């Protein structure tokens, strides 16, 4: 991905529908060549943001720049962006080729060039030879490719995708996901995708913005979002997480300790907490970063190489097991305290039989695994 030249900037953009604030003072820059993803629960304002970019909604306050030019007053048909709609919105009365050519016809591109570009676009989305079909003779996945080709044939500066994979079944979705990613690399156009599906966003995007209630929560790369969430909302929204509310009792440059009333033993961290303050903090531990070990009655807790004795280990009992094929998810009740989720990969064909319901276990995690959240 080249350079950090912003192609799109949102400057203090707010959108209100009556009294409802759909987008609340968003500042965001999207760079040339990025595959950017807007992620959030439904109603968080991500689609509104996209529609403002396409020109179907206008910001109540603030402005939107494309290539440094304010486009707030430019109608949708004059903007250098094209969109792939959630329902694809392929014109049913036109053939596939006519659909793809539509944008060029409207722009009065000469017929010869038009035919060539349509042919190229068909090839790009692997629909060569289907140009004369009507949309109702196509499958859902093929219709989506038509929508993609129709938008890409205009060579937009930015391609907008509104929940592009939500209407496809699971297998096809995986396939289209791979293809979308390959397509973006091939054409080199900036893609902006709106989705509520975190897997989709993590797998495809080079950078994600998480939104909630109109506010931008965090903008980061997929792995930073997952491993270094900035707030409880992000930690909880991306993947699943065990959150422990507690207090920072020790905070040195090379280690820190959180004591939580929800856990019998302290959480030891192998790093200091920057920007820490007194009061409540939260420790977030992902289920796959927690390990289970068999425990016999009255045995001493195992010693961990990266934490002092007694920290980062608790005694528990398995209450639920869900076998998901590639992994198993356990609900483990910490003796006298709450339940936590633990995910365990089934590395061999017998791994799912290691732990049974009601079995006593030691629950441990590494000192680098918990993420400390201040809000």
């Amino acid at each position, binding site marked *: 991905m080249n350079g950090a030249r912003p192609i799109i900037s949102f400057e203090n953009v707010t959108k209100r529908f009556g009294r409802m604030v759909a987008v609340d003072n968003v500042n965001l820059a999207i760079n040339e060549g990025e595959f950017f993803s807007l992620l959030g629960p439904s109603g968080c304002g991500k689609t509104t943001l996209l529609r403002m970019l*396409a*020109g*179907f909604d206008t910001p109540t306050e603030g402005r939107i720049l494309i290539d440094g030019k304010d486009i707030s007053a430019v*109608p*949708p*048909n*004059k903007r250098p*962006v*094209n*969109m792939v*709609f*959630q*329902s*694809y*919105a*392929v*014109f*049913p*009365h036109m053939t596939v080729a006519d659909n793809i050519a*539509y*944008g060029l016809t*409207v*722009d009065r591109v000469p017929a010869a060039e038009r035919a060539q570009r349509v042919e190229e676009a068909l090839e790009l989305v692997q629909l060569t030879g289907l140009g004369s079909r*009507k*949309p*109702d003779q196509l499958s*859902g996945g093929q*219709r989506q490719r038509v*929508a993609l080709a*129709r*938008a890409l044939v*205009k060579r937009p500066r930015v391609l907008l995708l509104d929940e592009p994979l939500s*209407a496809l079944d699971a297998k096809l979705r995986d396939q289209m996901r791979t293809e979308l990613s390959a397509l973006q690399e091939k054409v080199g156009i900036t893609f902006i995708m709106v989705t509520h599906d975190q897997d989709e966003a993590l797998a495809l995007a080079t950078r994600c913005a998480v939104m909630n209630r109109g506010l931008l929560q965090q903008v980061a790369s997929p792995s930073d979002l997952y491993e270094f969430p900035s707030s409880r909302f992000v930690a909880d929204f991306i993947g699943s997480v065990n959150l422990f509310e507690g207090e920072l009792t020790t905070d040195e440059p090379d280690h820190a300790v959180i004591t939580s009333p929800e856990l019998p033993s302290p959480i030891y961290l192998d790093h200091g907490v920057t920007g820490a303050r007194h009061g409540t903090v939260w420790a977030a531990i992902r289920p796959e970063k927690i390990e289970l070990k068999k425990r016999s009655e009255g045995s001493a807790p195992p010693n961990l190489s990266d934490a002092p004795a007694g920290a980062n280990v608790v005694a528990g009992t398995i209450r639920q097991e869900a076998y998901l094929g590639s992994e198993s998810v356990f609900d483990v009740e910490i003796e006298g305290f709450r339940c936590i989720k633990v995910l365990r990969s089934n590395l061999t064909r017998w791994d799912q039989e290691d732990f049974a319901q009601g079995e006593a276990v030691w629950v441990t995690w590494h000192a680098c695994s918990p993420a400390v959240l201040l809000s």
Partner: protein
Amino acid sequence: MGVAMLVFFARILPWPQEMPWPLNLGAIIIAHVSFSFPFVAVVVRARLASFNREMEEAARDLGAGEWRTISDVIVPHIAPSLVAGALLAFTLSLDDFVITFFTAGPDTVTFPVKVYSMVRFSVTPEVNAASTVLILVTVIFTAVALRLQGDPAATTGHAGDKA
């Protein structure tokens, strides 16, 4: 409604005299449009309700102006209902006697009014001939319509918009 129209036209007369068709035909047209309009509107509205707004936005997004969007995307979508509405309006208009009778002047008469005035005295051969032609035309149109309905190619144009 015929009486209301009669009073209305009597009230707003005199009309400009140099119209391209006889004055009374103008009155009949206005009357017929106003009573057919609701029927057509209901049919077209019903069809328009199934229109996916994203389709309109897609056209705009691809560079079409508002008028271009209407002619390229919206009109093709509602075309079947426009045809149905036209046929309905034609039938209503052809069938109507009362409103026409009240609004028509001495110079212009429509088919049913003419037939009515002819059969008041006796059924002439002209009336028989006219009836035969009307029945034939109806039968032919019905046959054509049935044929078109049976032909899948003629109905595929709007089968795909359930997505």
